[in-house]
């Protein structure tokens, strides 16, 4: 009886290990330092008045269970978060005056990050929803970002980042 229990335990452990290796092999890796490539990005992403703001640089650290993202831009305060890849909601470390929560999941070869940002303004409280779809292809990262706000039609822009 004891032998059967031990064998079943070993079998189960091996199965879990094989599953973890399988996931690790198929999951895309977004780790690295990424810099915005203006030439390859949507026209409305760059310049003095972007349609949607994209970070100039992304620092990404990924493990099998979570992904940390620090987004920095020239003269703008950084935004960072460590997302659990199981899709659970986390607090985003946003600049003072901004409250933001977000969640991330791996969807095939894509990373999907959704977030909700709130801040006050002279027009009252503002709530903006973002959805980012990340795709990595070698040393190129593409981020498609959609911004949705009450009273407004959603807009989507694409940015391309090069790995440093």
């Amino acid at each position, binding site marked *: 009886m004891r032998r059967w229990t031990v064998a079943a335990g070993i079998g189960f452990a091996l199965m879990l290990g094989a599953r973890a290796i399988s996931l690790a092999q198929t999951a895309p890796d977004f780790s690295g330092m990424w810099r915005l490539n203006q030439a390859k990005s949507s026209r*409305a992403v*760059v*310049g*003095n*008045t972007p349609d949607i703001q994209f970070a100039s640089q992304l620092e990404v650290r990924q493990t099998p269970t979570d992904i940390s993202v620090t987004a920095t831009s020239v*003269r703008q*305060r950084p935004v960072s978060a460590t997302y659990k890849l199981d899709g659970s909601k986390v607090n985003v470390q946003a600049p003072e005056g901004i409250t933001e929560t977000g969640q991330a999941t791996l969807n095939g070869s894509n990373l999907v990050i959704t977030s909700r940002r709130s801040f006050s303004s002279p027009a009252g409280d*503002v709530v*903006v929803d973002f959805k980012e779809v990340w795709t990595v292809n070698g040393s190129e990262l593409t981020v498609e970002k959609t911004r949705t*706000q009450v009273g407004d039609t959603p807009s989507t822009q694409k940015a391309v980042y090069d790995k440093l």
Partner: protein
Amino acid sequence: MRVMVALATVSTGILFAGISLQAHHSFSATYDGNKPITLRGTIVKMGWQNPHAHLYVDVKNPDGKVVTWEVESAGPTTLMKQGLRKEDFVGAEVIIKGFLAKDGTPTVNASSFTLVESKKEFVNDEKTP
């Protein structure tokens, strides 16, 4: 006398260069890219000047209070290229998409706006970094 004229010319040039630099600032120095905002209101005044036209828009808050916003846009040449004229603005209802000023004042930089009735649109395609 010639020296005086030359000095006066140079001084005037420096003075106006300073004004121009102050007016034509970069987006990131003045506006918060982390704070996008959409506003709807009525244009009460139009500053039709270079390098940026300015719209003054009355926006009603959820509590009923009306706040006049200053909206920085592209210059008249860019607006005219997109089919907009100075006389299109005052009194028109407008929807503006832009970014809040860092200083917390009711000021935005418009990435686009739409005049509701005439459906005339402005989309900023400025390439200047």
